[in-house]
């Protein structure tokens, strides 16, 4: 296994090079007018809502103080009982965990949930690292307090998005990731899990959440 084959040498030979390049090569310039589909910072919450709705996510605008109540009502409608949350300054500030517990839900923070137990959750509630107006995407960047499984294995994912999270375009997302230092794992979520493998018929909730509810704070 320690035996490293000479793939890089072979590649160099195939490119008719005798030795490694002395200077880094210059990749094609990325002209912003060409690669950008969203050119303005104006109206991002509206654009995000439109794109996310097109991607079959359910977006509702919500005042911060109403959030715990709204989530509780949604969870009751969906008959969810076991709920998982990350340790998140935003959710903590909005008092989501304690409100849900007080309302009778079995809500737990990620530090009290094992990966295996996450498979038994009815819903996961998360904040986001970013949201993308162009595509209506939610961007999740896990950390020790925010498990990857929370937005993945429960059948319902509830995401809380602040307007300041929204970037205009995928171009901006990658610039932000570069600035922040790229983590070992980032997931861009654009819609509920789905498949069309059997005769092209669309089925949601294949392996990930089949329902994505987004609360966009005012």
């Amino acid at each position, binding site marked *: *296994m320690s035996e*490293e*084959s*000479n*793939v*890089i040498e*072979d*590649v*160099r030979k*195939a*490119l008719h*090079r005798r030795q*490694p*390049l002395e200077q880094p*090569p210059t*990749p*094609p310039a*990325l*002209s912003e007018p060409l*690669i950008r589909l969203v050119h303005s910072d104006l109206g991002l919450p509206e654009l995000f809502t439109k*794109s996310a709705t097109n*991607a079959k996510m359910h977006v509702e605008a919500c005042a911060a103080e109403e959030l715990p109540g709204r989530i509780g009502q949604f969870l009751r409608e969906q008959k969810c009982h076991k709920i998982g949350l990350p340790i998140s300054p935003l959710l903590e500030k909005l008092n989501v965990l304690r409100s849900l517990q007080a309302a009778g839900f079995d809500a737990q923070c*990620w530090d009290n949930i*094992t*990966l*295996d137990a*996450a*498979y038994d959750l009815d819903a996961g509630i998360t904040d986001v690292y970013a949201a993308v107006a162009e*595509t209506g995407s939610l961007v999740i960047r*896990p*950390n*020790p307090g925010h*498990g*990857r*499984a929370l937005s*993945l294995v429960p059948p319902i994912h509830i995401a809380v998005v602040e307007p300041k999270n929204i970037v205009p375009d*995928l171009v901006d997302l*990658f610039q932000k990731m*570069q600035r922040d230092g*790229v*983590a*070992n*794992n*980032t*997931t*861009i*979520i*654009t819609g*509920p899990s*789905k*498949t069309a*493998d*059997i*005769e*092209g018929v669309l*089925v949601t*909730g*294949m*392996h990930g*959440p089949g329902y994505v509810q987004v609360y966009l704070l005012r």
Partner: protein
Amino acid sequence: MAIPLEQLPAAQESESRFDFNEISVRCAADKRLAEAVTRNSLNQHVGRQAQMAALPDAEGLRELAGRIKQHAIENLDYYLEQLRQAVTRSGGQVHLVSTAEQARELITAIADRAGCKRVVKSKSMVSEEIALGHHLENHGLEVVETDLGEFIVQISHDKPSHLVLPIIHKTRASVGKLFAEYFHTPYTDDPATLSGQARLHLRNKFRRADFGMTGGNFLVAETGHVCVVENEGNARQSLTTPRVLVSLVGIEKIVPRLSDLAVMLKLLARSATGQPMTVYTNIFGGPRQPGEKDGPEEFHLVLIDNGRTEILADEQYRETLRCIRCGACLNACPVYRKIGGHSYGSVYPGPIGALITPLFEGLKKYQDLPQASSLCGACYEACPVKIDIPKHLLQMRRDIVSRHIKSAPERLVYQAWAWVLRSPRLYAIVNQLQKWHLRRSAKGTGWVSKLPPVASGWTKIRDMPAPAAKTFHQLWKGRK
């Protein structure tokens, strides 16, 4: 599919010539298969066209994407080294392997050393290319394909027939029958119920898995990341739940910068399935961080050559390495839509398969594939990285001639024909003889139902109109 796959010649094992004509004729004769493939691929094709038309400058974006990929493969030595260093910095282990065999041995060794037994695999063309699943199973590991289509392929011992839609050739009824037997449940052909049955089954597999495998759509050299796109969430679970993660990726998948992903992602899903974005875009590179409770403890990136440097060395065909396996050329191709993916006799079907299979596996064995095209150009028009597939197929036909790959009798016939064409008089004589012979075999019906041996293929499944009484030359001379 009506033709049991066991009857198809095994593409990898024999060195003899792959008989494209025989298989494609059989596949094209299967009405149900042709209908399913045509309907699904046309849907995707129309979806792609609508999405691309909605882009302000789709042509400019394709041009740029093609240039990014071309730049990356032309500086692949530099970017591979950069990628290796970046992944290592994030705590991942990078392995560069030359052959399929090395890759299979390495991956089993990783599993053995970590004591892993239960493998969840997400869809990856390169793992099909090296038949990794079978190898791991033979090694005593439990291997589960977790993409719904690939799972169905696995339990029916079939082969995928499309790059993106592996079971495009199967009907819901055949899946229903398969699941009723496999899960011991009452028969249903409802796609939602069937998907639900697979979901439950595979969820338990994910929960217990200790070894996850993915491929990769892109590799980011600068930051050391793998990018995997998908709609189902099975790749995301494969790279989240198991404690060991191995990503097996072809070396040509590199892009230089993280921001290049913005360009590639805007084209990939639009080209593949007519979506602006796939549901999950996974960008990862390295094991979980200290304190994290999920994600892999060990991350291995296996970068495989398996014939790619040979294609790289051939400047004529180098640009075929740009391919991002979106399947747009398959959906656009009138030939693919008639004959389906199994007709191409290898992992990579459609126009791009007709091109890269001979490059990977040898032109002698796959000399029929470059002919499996009308050169209409729909594939080139659809390709998001602008690979000029028709041009390369034509070049490959020239190679077949110049390298004397065709059989001696066939070559002789063409040489004789070329000789005849050089002399107008000789041409007129041969033409008269031919006309006389064909009109005689038509027996006054106006149709020739059997041509002599060299051309007999033409009349195998259809008749040929008999020539007119007077040739064009004769009519021209006799005009007033």
